[in-house]
């Protein structure tokens, strides 16, 4: 039993944390989200060139560092602590994971681009897209709602029902000039990311990268859910620290409001929620490479615990900040919105509770 990071993992964490503290400004990032291009491409390039985090979890033979779930956790938590909006989970965890397991040459080429910071890949999945073979190609139709990062993407992975499983298709992409038959409705999300609704009307694509990627997609979603849990832990640690600090400073009735027992107990409850979320992330991360059932059960446990914690910690951080917590002026409001969104990403709290119940049922 060992919960310590290796020396290299500590270096990864400290290097990234230092970089973000020095170079990732919350106000600049929000202004890029609201009135700019939706992200800071120069930060993304620095993630690749200066920090090497985009390939940190990829195998060494395709330009990666060969890191595993622990590296993923360390990176995601640091990104969450700084409220990074750049598309790490979508591009590196979801698309990266699918491409590594696709194992084709095209997949490897794209992984190298991801590691180099020159490709952003979004996954369009959901029940709405079908594909049929047509001559030497395939024709896709249907729609996908709220495809995260699509407006920023250079490539799309599209999961489509082929009638014989879920095919995984790959295409180059530019939201401003999408392929024929593909309509893109882009927008900002409540947590200042970019996403889009896609409508496919006979979009012609080459043969799928993977003929039936059902199992790979399940795994990718679990890995993404685990990454989002780690990201949420980073956000919750920041929100808790800010709240405690605020309650020490803020004076009412001639004393710091942090001296009132009712508020102390609330903050202690927040602290315990965060500690349980940290433990839940370990549970998910340390089982990410286990059998699919064990993996799914652990990830669902983590997502349910983290979802509940994100709600409690986020809501109470706002409450204890009073009106200031409701504004865009302090960090707390921005973190609250992200902590709201994480409860619904890659399966809501209720979805994961119900999946856990199914998997853990006696005799299942």
């Amino acid at each position, binding site marked *: 039993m060992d919960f310590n990071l290796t020396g290299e993992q500590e270096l990864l964490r400290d290097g990234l944390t230092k970089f973000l503290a020095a170079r990732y400004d919350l106000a600049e990032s929000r202004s890029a989200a609201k009135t700019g291009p939706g992200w800071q491409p120069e930060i993304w390039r620095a993630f690749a060139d200066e920090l090497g985090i985009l390939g940190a979890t990829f195998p060494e033979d395709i330009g990666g560092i060969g890191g595993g779930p622990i590296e993923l956790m360390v990176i995601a938590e640091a990104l969450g602590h700084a409220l990074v909006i750049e598309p790490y989970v979508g591009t590196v965890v979801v698309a990266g994971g699918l491409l590594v397991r696709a194992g084709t040459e095209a997949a490897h080429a794209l992984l190298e681009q991801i590691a180099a910071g020159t490709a952003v890949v979004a996954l369009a999945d959901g029940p709405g897209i079908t594909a049929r073979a047509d001559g030497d190609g395939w024709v896709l139709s249907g729609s996908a709602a*709220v495809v995260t990062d699509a407006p920023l993407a250079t490539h799309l992975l599209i999961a489509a029902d082929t009638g014989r499983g879920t095919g995984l298709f790959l295409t180059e992409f530019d939201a401003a000039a999408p392929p024929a038959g593909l309509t893109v409705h882009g927008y900002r999300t409540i947590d200042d990311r970019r996403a889009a609704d896609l409508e496919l009307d006979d979009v012609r694509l080459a043969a799928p990268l993977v003929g039936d990627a059902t199992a790979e997609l399940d795994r990718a979603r679990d890995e993404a859910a685990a990454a989002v849990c780690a990201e949420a832990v980073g956000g919750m640690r920041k929100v808790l620290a800010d709240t405690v600090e605020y309650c020490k400073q803020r004076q009412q009735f001639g004393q710091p*409001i942090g001296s009132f027992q009712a508020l102390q107990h609330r903050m202690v409850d927040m602290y315990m929620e965060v500690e349980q979320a940290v433990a839940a992330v370990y549970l998910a991360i340390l089982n990410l490479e286990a059998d699919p059932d064990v993996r799914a059960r652990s990830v669902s446990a983590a997502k349910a615990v983290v979802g509940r914690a994100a709600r409690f910690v986020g809501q109470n951080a706002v409450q204890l900040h009073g009106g200031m917590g*409701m504004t865009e002026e302090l960090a707390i409001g921005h973190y609250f919105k992200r902590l709201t969104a994480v409860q619904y990403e890659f399966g809501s709290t209720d979805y994961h509770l119900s999946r856990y119940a199914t998997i853990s049922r006696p005799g299942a």
Partner: protein
Amino acid sequence: MDLNWSAEDLAFRDEVRTFLDTKLTDDLRGAGRLMTSVYAEHEASMAWQAILHERGWAAPAWPVEHGGCDWTLPQHYIFSRECQLAGAPSLSPMGIRMVSHAIMKFGTKEQKDFFLPGILTGEVFFCQGYSEPESGSDLASLQMAAVEDGDDLILTGSKIWTTHAIEANWMFALVRTTRSERKQLGITFILLEMTTPGIEVHPLVMTSGEEVQAQVFFDGVRVPKANILGKIDDGWTVAKYLLEFERGGSVTAPALQVMAEEIGAAAAQQPGPSGGRLIDDPAFARKLADARIRTEVLEILEFRTLTIVAQGGNPGPASSMLKIISTELSQALTELALEAAGARGRVYQPHATRPGGPIAEFEPPADDYLSGEPWQAVAPLRYFNDRAGSIYAGSNEIQRNILAKAALGL
């Protein structure tokens, strides 16, 4: 004991329903249905107030001589309830429900003659200047200086969380005229025009993106002493009267019941987290049932409080309890609406809603594209804004302190 309305009450209800059916246009209903907070879109709210005023129903709780209605208490409740059930936009509470009652009690004849008719027509639109950056829950510690100079007071300082400061042409404010040992002494209640030189309004951008609240800065603002309400240095008495007046008068359960019904209807069309319809998902169905039960219980609590007031009694700490219960219930419902919205609840699309103020830093899509249904666009904004319910008008922590003392004698 009887939960049923009398025949007269039912006839009155039908009269109100007929009025609402004819007067509440689709546009006004839309403004009510697409509200992102307790504040309706300003223009729609004022238009609705004008229609109500025409019928003599803009301020039913006022005494008849000032333009109120000669209604029984059940009739007042029925009127509020029917308006909420019909989805009418809300009216600003600052003038009609709040400062007007203090003006009636403490105002000079000139003040009554000027302000009361103006409030009814909407020509006088008030905002509230109570909280300051350093005085929130501890309101009596407020510091905004008001220095006497001949016939005037000169105001310097700032007020915060001022709702509709941009739209308002008048403010009622608490200012510090004298510093004394007891912080409640030396406060003055004053009415001031928002166009007075030296006032600057800085809108605050909330997490929903809306600019409904503002911080208002005062730099040597000259206000005639004739605008003081009550006596100088005795503003706390006026403020306390206002607070007490609000007691027992609130009707919140019907609006919450409408919210619950709308969530149920939406959930019948939405996919659940594990396949099937959301309304058939046991976890969701139980949460919605629990919230609906709480709205039914809240309604009885509100009825009971009303009957105590009707018999001339004081509801006591019940007002604190009702504030906590109704705001926490509202938060539970906005949380459920966001859950029901599913993935679409993450999309930021205020252009499909009718917010209570301008939206900062947002360009609506050129083709007005909407991801999902309008209620899904409302859900996240309403959820964010509703976090204010447990903070404003005396935070729920302060209300619990009051209950501990007044209800339990602790």
